[in-house]
């Protein structure tokens, strides 16, 4: 039975873009052009996934997310956000949204997120298996983690949920040492065996100090130990004080 997806955006062209991106997947797609319309549909039938614009007149993305909670519904939710409102998207994730994708997106970018959302068991939503660790770990829920080292630098990697949902990882692309990365923006790529490229968002802004060559050389390390040996790179955070509140501490 195909999974049911509800797409919400006040612009027809974005709804079309989502339909086009997902047209080869076996999905049943409904569309709504407002938060209110979406709530009507949500009340009438169950959905596995809701893809919604964050900024809409009337009930916006965050409002919709909250109403879904209040209706005791549990679809996965993906926020479509503009580039300047990534911080809002991070907040949405803290409130339980599964993932966000920045506009304008390619089909590939949207599909990778949809694929992971549908593959992630909803029970595990936003709660990666706790890992024994002396240092505290901060998460972009379902996505990436960051752990501080004693020297003030921090290691970054993908969350277990992310690695599991991506499937068999065959290749990775990480930034070079010296590069600048920004919180919430794509900083690395994980290529899965099903040819889906997953963007990895950086949990913090900073300058990359070192990459984990072992994990680059052997992506199985990421697969088997995403939150320990499979870390991707180490960075020197530049704005941690302001950015940490947008993450979830475990």
């Amino acid at each position, binding site marked *: 039975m195909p999974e049911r997806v509800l797409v919400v955006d006040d612009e027809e062209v*974005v709804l*079309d873009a989502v339909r086009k991106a997902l047209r080869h997947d076996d999905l049943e797609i409904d569309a709504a052009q407002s938060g209110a319309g979406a709530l009507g549909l949500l009340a009438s039938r169950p959905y596995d996934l809701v893809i919604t614009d964050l900024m809409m007149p009337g009930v916006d993305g965050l409002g919709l997310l909250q109403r879904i909670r209040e209706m005791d519904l549990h679809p996965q939710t993906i926020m479509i956000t503009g*580039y300047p409102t990534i911080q809002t998207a991070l907040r949405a994730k803290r409130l339980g949204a599964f993932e966000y994708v920045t*506009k304008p*997106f*390619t089909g590939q970018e949207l599909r990778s997120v949809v694929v992971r959302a549908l593959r992630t068991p909803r029970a595990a939503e936003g709660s990666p298996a706790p890992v024994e660790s002396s240092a505290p770990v901060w998460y972009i829920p379902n996505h990436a983690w960051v752990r501080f080292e004693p020297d003030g630098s921090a290691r970054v990697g993908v969350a277990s949920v992310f690695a599991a949902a991506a499937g068999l990882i065959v290749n990775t692309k990480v930034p070079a040492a010296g590069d600048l990365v920004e919180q919430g923006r794509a900083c690395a790529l994980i290529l899965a065996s099903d040819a889906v490229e997953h963007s990895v968002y950086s949990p913090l802004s900073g300058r990359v100090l070192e990459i984990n060559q072992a994990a680059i050389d052997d992506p199985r390390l990421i697969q088997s130990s995403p939150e320990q040996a499979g870390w991707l790179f180490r960075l020197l955070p530049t704005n941690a004080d302001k950015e940490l509140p947008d993450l979830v501490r475990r």
Partner: protein
Amino acid sequence: MRRRSAVLELTLLTVFVMAALPAASSLVMLRWHRSWLLEEARRGLLLTCDAVEASLRLAMMQNQREEIRASIERIARRTHVRQIRLAEHRGRITLSAYPEAVGRRLALDAPPCAVCHTGGKPRSRPPTSVQARTVLDSNSLRAFTPVMAEPGCVNPACHRQEKPSGVLGIIDISLPLDQFERNLAETRTWSLALSSVSVLIGAVVVWLVLARRFRCPMQDLLRGIRRVAAGNLTHRIAVRSNDEFGELAQSFNHMSEQLADTQQSLIQSERLISMGKLAAGVAHEINNPLTGIVAYAEALAEDAGPSDPRRKDYEVILREALRCRQIIRGLLDFARQDAPALVPSHPKDLIEKTLQVVARQAAFRNIAFEQHIEPDVPLIDVDPLQIEQVLLNLFVNAQQAMPAGGRIAVGARRAVGVGRVELTVQDEGTGIAPEIRSRIFEPFFSTKGGRTDGLGLAVCLGIVQRHRGAIEVESQPGRGTLVRVTLPVAQSRQAAEREEG
């Protein structure tokens, strides 16, 4: 209210001081001169009087009255003496150069008789002092010589058998003072005239000097201030002298330059801010249509078979749409204008970190870096990441100006003046043509034809301005470009501690 003229006031004050003091002193001098002249006149007149008495003595002894009268008339006529009289000891005038006076009596209680005739018995020995024997009237000077009895004075025709003794009478002459007063008045007039003329000349000289030294610079300054107030910040005042006014003019010019610089940087930052806002708005509006273009182009490219000639076209649409997305993201990053998180940082660290970044890039393979970092260059209050971004952009520009490779000199030193550090990046590349130099900081201004986003220098300017710094460019086409970034020296206690450490 009528405008007061400081130059006029100063001139008048100077003239007043110049005129009043000499006027007072010459007044005193004139008085002193007059009394000195009078003293001389008294002596002279007394001498004349004594001479007349001596010359008439023989005739008096012989009682030759006609001879005496003829003599005194002659003297009175031929000299400046006005009157010559002989009076006997009780005051009766016995002989006079003017006969109508004969027989009148002199008042014994008035000068000159009073000298001897005060009290009861007249003095038998008359005084000899000049003061006592001369009298100053309102318009004449009088002198008398006592005629003393001598052993030969026994002529009965004169003394009626009395044995004459003591003072027999006086010879009294008077000198008119009108000529004397006229001379004095003339002297006064001349000296007044001469001093007035010299004061007038002095006044003109003072006025000219004041006008040249004060009024011209003042008017220059006033004109300058009006021009600047009217918005003409390029107006400069001529520095005429090497004194306070010169300094004032220089300060004024310096102030105008600073104002122009500030205005320029305000305009630039205002322009950046408004462009940033505009860009953010445009980017927001473009997001949705671009999402559609990307999705449809992807779908078309995917649907076209591998042999379909249109497939390449669809891919071009997709590629260019994604380039638009990249441009917009660059623009939004630029418009976001993060406030710098200031940390006291060492310029050497900033430069070296940036050099590490470019060292790995292929484009910099043919570039040799030279560092000129002063050993005692102070810490600066900057956001290290943002300033490294500035340096990186400048390095990239320098490299792109030298496609065949070359040398980039990076410098750091304490700036002239206080509290600033200068970071410099100098290349030996193609340079910047003068006609585009004013535009290079504009967002999207690029000479590199789409190879870059045209935001590099605009980003630099934005960052530097948020650091309260300045960025300037010197360039010689064909010779190279020097970019100078000026940033504030670290103020915090932390910095002091670090320097000590």
